[in-house]
């Protein structure tokens, strides 16, 4: 007797339509929330609706909290935009953390040493450019090695994160206040020199403007520019690219220069627009979170807005459930993990068709 598998899995011949994809993802999200609820009840015997409400409250409960959520979304989004071209080229840039730190350190250095020597507008432009160049150099180092000697970029970029951390630690020795305390504190607290000013009465207005310009710019660059097309071809197959006459080495270095520069700008946005300080925790793991954002969004920068918002939303909510219910903040990591599991799992059902085996 021939045994038939209960379920048959086959690759979809035609891509699922957008309605179908949306439906699958929506079902995944609902399932994720149900499982999260079950976990909450099982672990802490609390009403999951209350916990969801607290998360919502923590992220959007007041105007201030909403703006914090927006501010952190913009930072995460900026980093994800930076990573998009690199990953689209299948260049595994695990080094966003380092590129952010170097960018942030450049901004901080300009603030500290030139804060009182330039008019505000010029100072901010110098900081912006310094951060972009800093991040660009940090991103180009592994790219040049990859292009020239085919080194492994995953390891190389990862290791450069630790180098960047040491560079920042070294800088802090000169900038810390008081000496030996390892804290730089708020830079230019009295003069606010080098702080992004308010825009439309909003403290974080400029952060939003800068990052949204990058969002649109990157979307156009990847979708409608020749260079964006080259990135896609190199990502699919280097040999094809070479056959088509694309200078692969040049594309690798150029793309990583852009990627690093945008991550450096993220460092500028953090230092000048949010924290006004520099420490080894300035990047805070966001360089890694952004990788998930970039992949989940399939490098579409507009989808990234939604995904970054979702992740920051959960993070902000975490603080609230921690204070309100005395749950550890890691509780929301568990919830986020469950949601990501289902969303990534949904991709399987988008690419494959599952059918009951015929009798």
């Amino acid at each position, binding site marked *: 007797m021939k045994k038939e598998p209960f379920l048959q899995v086959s690759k979809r011949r035609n891509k699922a339509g957008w309605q179908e994809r949306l439906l699958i993802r929506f079902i995944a999200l609902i399932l994720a929330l149900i499982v999260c609820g079950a976990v909450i009840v099982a672990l802490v015997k609390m009403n999951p609706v209350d916990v969801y409400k607290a998360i919502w409250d923590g992220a959007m409960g007041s105007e201030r909290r909403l703006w914090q959520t927006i501010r952190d979304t913009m930072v995460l989004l900026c980093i994800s935009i930076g990573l998009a071209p690199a990953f689209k080229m299948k260049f595994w840039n695990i080094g966003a953390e380092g590129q952010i730190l170097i960018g942030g350190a450049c901004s901080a250095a300009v603030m500290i040493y030139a804060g009182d020597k330039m008019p505000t507008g010029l100072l901010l432009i110098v900081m912006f450019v310094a951060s972009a160049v800093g991040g660009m150099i940090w991103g180009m180092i592994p790219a040049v090695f990859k292009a020239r000697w085919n080194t492994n970029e995953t390891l190389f970029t990862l290791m450069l994160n630790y180098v960047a951390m040491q560079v920042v630690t070294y800088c802090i020795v000169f900038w810390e206040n008081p000496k030996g305390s*390892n804290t730089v504190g708020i830079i230019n607290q009295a003069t606010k020199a080098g702080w992004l000013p308010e825009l439309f009465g909003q403290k974080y207005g400029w952060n939003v403007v800068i990052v949204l310009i990058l969002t649109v710019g990157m979307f156009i660059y990847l979708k409608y520019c020749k260079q964006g097309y080259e990135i896609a071809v190199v990502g699919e197959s280097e040999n094809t690219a070479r056959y088509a006459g694309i200078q692969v080495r040049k594309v690798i270095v150029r793309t990583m220069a852009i990627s690093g520069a945008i991550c450096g700008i993220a460092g500028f946005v953090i230092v000048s627009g949010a924290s006004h300080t520099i420490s080894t925790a300035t990047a805070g793991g966001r360089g890694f979170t952004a990788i998930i954002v970039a992949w989940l969004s399939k490098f579409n920068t507009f989808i990234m807005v939604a995904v970054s918002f979702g992740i920051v939303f959960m993070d902000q909510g975490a603080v609230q459930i921690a204070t309100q219910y005395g749950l550890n903040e890691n509780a929301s990591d568990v919830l986020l993990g469950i949601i990501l599991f289902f969303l990534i799992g949904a991709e399987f059902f988008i690419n494959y068709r599952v059918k009951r085996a015929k009798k």
Partner: protein
Amino acid sequence: MRKALAIGLAAVMAVSMSAPVFASDDSEGGAGIAKEDLKIGAIYIGDENEGYTAAHMAGIDEMVENLGLDDSQVIEKTLIGEDEGCYDAAADLADQGCQIIFANSFGHETYILEAAGEYPDVQFCHATGTQAASSGLSNMHNYFTNIYEARYVSGVVAGLKLNEMIADGTVKEDACKIGYVGAFPYAEVISGYTSFYLGAKSVCPSVTMEVKYTNSWASFDLEKECADALISDGCVLISQHADTTGAPTACEAAGVPCVGYNIDMTSVAPNTALTSASMDWGVYYTYAVQCMIDGTTIDTDWCKGFAEGADKITPLNDKVVAEGTEDKVKEVEDALSDGSLHVFDTSTFTVDGKELDTYEKDGQEYVSDGYFHESEYGSAPAFDVAIDGITSITE
């Protein structure tokens, strides 16, 4: 629209009605806040799993009990980093109606200052900080305890143990060296280990000390490694100014006596932990919140010690401490309380072979009447002089 109007009207009425009650001048110590209307915020660098923050949380609980408040009147935010997240937390607590907000980590200070400027009606209290007085903000306060007194007493306990080890021949008199696991090389830590050393030296004159830094406030692995390195460097007793149980864990494995910080270390080092220098933050929290109730002004710099019960050493581990320790500790504690003994008595140590007869910092002379006036002109420790007998290794 109508709803918004109603809310607006209600707000105007509420403000106009409450105005006469709260309009009295705060700086004159006007009307206090009724106990049941109090709302207290706390911002912590760590959570209950980290000794330093755990001590603060215990202090807050003690205050709630002392003053007969309800737990729901306290909002505690844990794991708040030293970045814009700290400002967010402070502003959020103020938005939620907290009238007094505490923050416990050194690096929080500039962010708390930022919030204090923005919310002039909310009192902000920052532990271990230095900038309240110079900020010119009347609602910004610093607090700390005279932890150097507790360190001195724990140093005495260590010195007596060293004497016992010399007497029974396990250590040579000229080779009794203490190892110290420090966090960062600045005044708070330097003042701490110097007072510990002076305590040990007061009973064991030949003692020397070696200090190594981890450059982290709380890292179990680094502190353990650091203690191991000190032990292999010939240190026969270990103490620490870092927040985990890393050092005592290393000591227990190596059989080296140790003195902890913040919490009782006997749970991880039952056969080697002598005692720990520790603080009772509840004394300050009770004081500060009582000020809110009474409507009196909170000290800009608050720093108290043994006399007020803000400092203590954890119970002596009878299995390890030398004979007669308890009596000696009592004697020293009493002398510190009544002011007859000063930790930084300049006749007990030298700097580059000479007695320290003057030390000026920020325009303030600290040495007079034969001792260094630690923590008298600001709540944060000030003593940052390298004295003879201590070698520190800054990498």
